[in-house]
């Protein structure tokens, strides 16, 4: 037998082709095959439960396990690290729950927090450093490398926080206006914050390379000169205070 052929057949067996390995294994191997078949799924199920812990709590055992079983049957792992498994789960939940966006958004929050946990390290600007001389006409702000932001339609952040602290989750709300959640790691603590459309725009401006002066200008265009500059200053102060800013160059 060719080793490559055998390994292909073993893969097919794990993915649910039960008889494909018969010619490669000894006659008494059936119970042993069952061990590998079970272990493959059990490992992936455990990974999904750990990665999407709050989503699991929200959906409950039956719905969550139905979802992850469906996911496992349709997505075989490819990365060397099992922590990458689950990267398409949010899309699947969005399809399964088209009228309940909080489900996919909870999963995306679970997923993004998990990525932030062991994401890249970076320096953080302190509030004290803001007192130093900074050329604000040309200053550029760089966010910490773990920062991620995604649009949300629901109060999934409040749902997540309530479940994390083992409180009764609030009633699901759907926002009338655009909103987003930003996720980042502050030291070793993964954090998130639900933000409104204006801050979402501000984060996007900076993330796309705008200087602080350009941020002020863009916000002034939306809010007027006085309010635009003060809003930019308030955002920056909040970002620095939350450990979100890696550098002001």
């Amino acid at each position: 037998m060719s080793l490559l052929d055998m390994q292909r057949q073993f893969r097919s067996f794990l993915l649910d082709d039960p008889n494909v390995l018969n010619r490669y294994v000894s006659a008494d191997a059936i119970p042993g095959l069952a061990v590998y078949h079970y272990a493959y799924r059990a490992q992936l199920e455990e990974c999904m439960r750990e990665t999407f812990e709050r989503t699991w709590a929200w959906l409950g055992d039956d719905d969550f396990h139905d979802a992850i079983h469906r996911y496992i049957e349709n997505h075989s792992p490819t990365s060397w690290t099992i922590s990458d498994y689950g990267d398409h789960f949010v899309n699947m939940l969005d399809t399964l729950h088209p009228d309940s966006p909080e489900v996919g958004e909870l999963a995306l929050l679970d997923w993004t927090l998990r990525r932030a946990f062991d994401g890249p390290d970076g320096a953080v600007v302190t509030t004290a450093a803001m007192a130093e001389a900074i050329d604000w006409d040309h200053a550029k702000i760089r966010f910490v490398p773990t920062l991620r932001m995604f649009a949300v339609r629901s109060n999934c952040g409040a749902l997540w926080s309530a479940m994390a602290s083992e409180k009764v989750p609030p009633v699901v709300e759907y926002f009338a206006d655009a909103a987003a959640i930003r996720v980042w790691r502050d030291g070793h603590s993964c954090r998130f914050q639900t933000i409104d459309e204006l801050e979402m725009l501000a984060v996007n401006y900076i993330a796309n390379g705008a200087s602080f002066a350009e941020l002020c200008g863009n916000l002034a265009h939306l809010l007027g000169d006085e309010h635009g500059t003060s809003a930019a200053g308030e955002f920056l102060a909040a970002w620095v205070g939350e450990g979100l800013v890696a550098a002001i160059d």
Partner: protein
Amino acid sequence: MRTHHLPAFEGFGLGLRPVHYEEILGGQVPVDFVEIISENFMVQGGKPLAILERVRAHYPVVMHGVSLSIGSADGLKLDYLQKLKELAARIQPLWVSDHLCWTGVEGFNSHDLLPLPYTDEALDVVCTNVNVVQDYLGRPILLENPSTYLGYSQADYSEPEFLAELCRRAGCYLLLDVNNIYVSGVNQGFDPFHYLSAIPKDYVRQMHLAGHSQGESRLIDTHDQPVPNAVWSVYRAACERFGSVASMIERDDNIPPLNELIDELNIARTVASVARRSEECLV
């Protein structure tokens, strides 16, 4: 093949597990080395790496991986090797180990330690892959005998014969898991003590001790129990054959308080000491 010599290291260690981080970081735990699961620290940053660097400041570390897939017929994953090399450069471990198994093929990764057929072709594949890894890392690796739950219809070698030939041809070393020898022995009907006698003395650099569970029809390598007496017996015989080799308790589930693992590690120290004295008496 470039020859990589690996000096022996004697001592008794434990696996680094999150529930024991605080005590281990205190630096006063009576262990001679700490073993990490490599993949848990092959990350970009954050708490895992920060913890590991603090642990490394107190203890020698060995890296033990589960995703190398040394038996994959279609070769190795270069992105994995790159991350492994980066971590080894950062941590400067005593050595790097993984398992004699395959985990995936052609882009599929089962995340399980799948058994290899012990054939001439598989030996060629594993030797080629070991040479690639050792040359890329610039250091020899250790391979661990896996727990297996089935046998293939075709085999040119027994498992210890395969390991012996692999070490001879590829110049790698062995991490002998005595629990795995026992589990596979029961599952596949071989004598663990006969197995030991077929392992060459000069290549064993580390031993694992662990517990297992009885499944429906097979012993399962669960690492969720104390080391049972039957495994201690195999360990004693291994100590008599291989001498003072770095040994550790490998516990991955149902993890007890650290002092219980230290007590279990002290049993290993006693068993190894008794075995050494009995060997000296024979000499």
